[in-house]
């Protein structure tokens, strides 16, 4: 057992600042355990969002010593000993209270992405056939636990506050999961280019580095989507085809 010292941000949307706490640390404890202990011992109204405490639900996102982390998967023993540990809320979202931020924007932005639209079933019993090889790419994206740490670290959202123009890495991954789904027939490339601002991403890969699920967000999701957008809208042959297509659709049926 050793005592650890913490600076935890306390406050609401109007004002706030760091407060000091200390608590005893047992073997194997994670940062969320320490926060809970502080809550029970000395700060019962210390607000923290959490659920599963097993890295599966993505609720307890915060910035620990300046790094976006899931508090439940950050072990105390991995942090520098004898140093005060700083915990603060995610910066890319408005604060509600203490470590809890208002992440509702992510849910609203997701609503705007066109939902899954499967092709007709392959079999008469209404089922489809898919090879494991063909779904593995999408299964990687579907590991996402929506912790929004990638959104938090993305400079387009964090520094430039372009939430209206850019949907952020999490929702790029969501788009990629839909676009690369073997059964999906929807076209989201126009939306990605226009409303969802895929061009804002300049591939700094910060999102990939913080992903607790180790999804290769930039390389596997965003870059292929960028390529598809480029192929669709900037490839000369495609541009020509699109002109014909739009003419066709102007014709009365």
């Amino acid at each position, binding site marked *: 057992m050793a005592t650890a010292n913490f600076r935890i941000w306390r406050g609401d949307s109007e004002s706030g600042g760091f407060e000091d706490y200390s608590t005893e640390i047992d073997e194997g*404890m994670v940062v969320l355990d320490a926060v809970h202990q502080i809550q*029970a011992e000395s700060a019962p*109204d210390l607000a923290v969002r959490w659920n*599963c*405490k097993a890295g599966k*639900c993505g609720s307890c996102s915060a910035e620990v010593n300046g790094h976006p982390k899931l508090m439940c998967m950050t072990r105390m023993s991995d942090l520098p000993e004898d140093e005060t540990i700083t915990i603060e809320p995610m910066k890319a979202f408005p604060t509600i209270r203490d470590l*809890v931020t208002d992440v509702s924007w992510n849910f609203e932005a997701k609503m705007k992405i066109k939902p899954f639209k499967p092709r007709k079933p392959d079999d008469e019993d209404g089922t489809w056939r*898919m090879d494991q090889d063909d*779904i593995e790419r999408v*299964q990687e994206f579907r590991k996402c636990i929506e912790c929004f740490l990638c959104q938090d670290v993305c400079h387009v959202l964090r520094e430039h506050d372009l939430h209206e123009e850019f949907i952020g890495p999490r929702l790029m991954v969501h788009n990629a999961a839909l676009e690369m789904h073997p059964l999906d027939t929807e076209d989201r490339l126009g939306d990605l280019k226009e409303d969802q601002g895929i061009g804002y991403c300049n591939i700094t890969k910060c999102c990939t580095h913080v992903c607790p699920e180790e999804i290769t967000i930039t390389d596997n999701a965003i870059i292929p989507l960028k390529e598809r957008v480029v192929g669709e809208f900037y490839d000369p042959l495609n541009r020509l085809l699109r002109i014909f297509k739009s003419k066709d659709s102007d014709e009365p049926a």
Partner: protein
Amino acid sequence: MAEYQSHEHDVLVIGAGGAGLRAAIEASAAGVSVGLVCKSLLGKAHTVMAEGGVAAALANVDDRDGWSVHFADTMRGGQYLSNWRMAELHAREAPDRVRELEAWGALFDRTTDGRILQRNFGGHKYPRLAHVGDRTGLEMIRTLQDYGIHQGMEVYMEHAIVALLKDGDRVVGAFGYDRERGRFRVFRAKAVILATGGIGRAFKITSNSWEYTGDGHGLAYDAGAALLDMEFVQFHPTGMVWPPSVRGILVTEGVRGEGGILTNSEGNRFMFDDIPDLYKNSTADSPEEGWIYTQGDKEARRPPELLTRDHVARCIVREIREGRGSPHNGVYLDISWIREKLSNAEEHIKRKLPSMYHQFKQLADIDITKEAMEVGPTTHYVMGGVLVDADTQMSTVPGLFAAGECAAGLHGANRLGGNSLSDLLVFGQRAGKYAAEYARENGDGAIDDGQVEAAVGETLAPFDREQSGENPFEIQYELQERMQELVGIVRNEGDMQRALEVIDDLRQRAGKVSVVGNREYNPGWHTALDLKFLLIVSEAVARAALERKESRGAHFREDYEEKDEAFGSLNITQHKGSDGEMVINRVPVTPLREDLAAIIEENK
């Protein structure tokens, strides 16, 4: 008059895990207006933690499977205390419910011919669990979430419900608050569906998240509904035991389904030592037979590690009690041994059990591809819950429905792994359908202000008391500690009588809880409000467990170690009596329909 915001819906669904989402989708599809209340953010509910898979007799891997085999397996697993009509509906409808998820975007792992892959699990005769590695729950909840948000339902994230509102006998709404700001809400609804999950937080060692405080059980009980089978609490045999802070976190049964073995400190594979009569014919008699079973050999019988959860948990407790446990009071679960059998074992384990690999690596410094895990039982699931009609999921109170873990009937004395995810889908769909129908056939109810005022008063009481009152966290910890010790995996009369005294005392203390701060996202306040339901479910479990003077399924009494035939044909129900006391009834099990009895006979 207290200030509150009102919302009106035809159907109000409380809880947004698999059952709640599926119910909300179905009710929306029926064209009624739906409100969906989640205690946390959407998509974070406990379903997210389900790992191994969803049980459905798709027969993609073994064409001998079918609904009748699944039915027989479920009844056997539940020690014949399940509601057979629910077990029938569940087995018949689960395949459609799973295929429907695929149509909504779910991507299950595939067979070589491109269909949904299924894996072995305890108590299931054939490979039956559709899965995605070991993160099936996440795939399910995300699929339902992403499909559901486009079906027109109104979602209330981070809202907690503290009381149901009634018009005479009928439930016509709910009162609650939003956790973020602490503002009060009155939801008016023609029908209400409870889908709040379980009660794991009444125990110290649990795989359940903070949300599992028995809200639906408590709400229903307070509204006059009957509870059923509350003595049956499933202790999952394999939870993490070390380090202390992760104690209880689930280790999926999938580890054993993929060939993982249980051993004690002497290196003995102890599961071979005690095989129950019901399963003698279907259990392997050598390690080699067990291994080839897990690798898909259709002639082989399953290894004893894949016996039902109640039995495996008890064997583990026996090993620990008799001094053959691991250093941290568990036993060993080893998947790394398959290196002897497979040349690409490391890669294979990481692909089949990625979350487990990750979880142990990150939280316990254990590489499961190279060494054994230490595991022990953890409170996982409550078979008991709101007594419902098998077809419609309506409780004994008109207008009040329940589905998923907070409802009871399907699992009897013990739930089979994988039957929970299918339960959510099958009965979530039914609850949504019949609640919508009920809402169409019944007009608006009237809610008198007195009920709302009383709920407001109760909710604000912890702020009104003197600040030197009881600490809500301390009461919760003490309840968890004592329930674990006195009403846990091994029970007896004296302990449980003591538990009732403890619960009574804690209830007095809970009445003196005070909280600091304001109503914005205040965990002390939230914990104080959770105590009421935790105490109700704790009392219900203890009283039902006292009443059942035998050992059956998940309920084990050291003072009545054997099964008692008389108890084998009755269920225990509980409801709130006219002067507020808990009334217990013994209800005879309805005799099986003839055709179903024949199915059970054929599958013996």
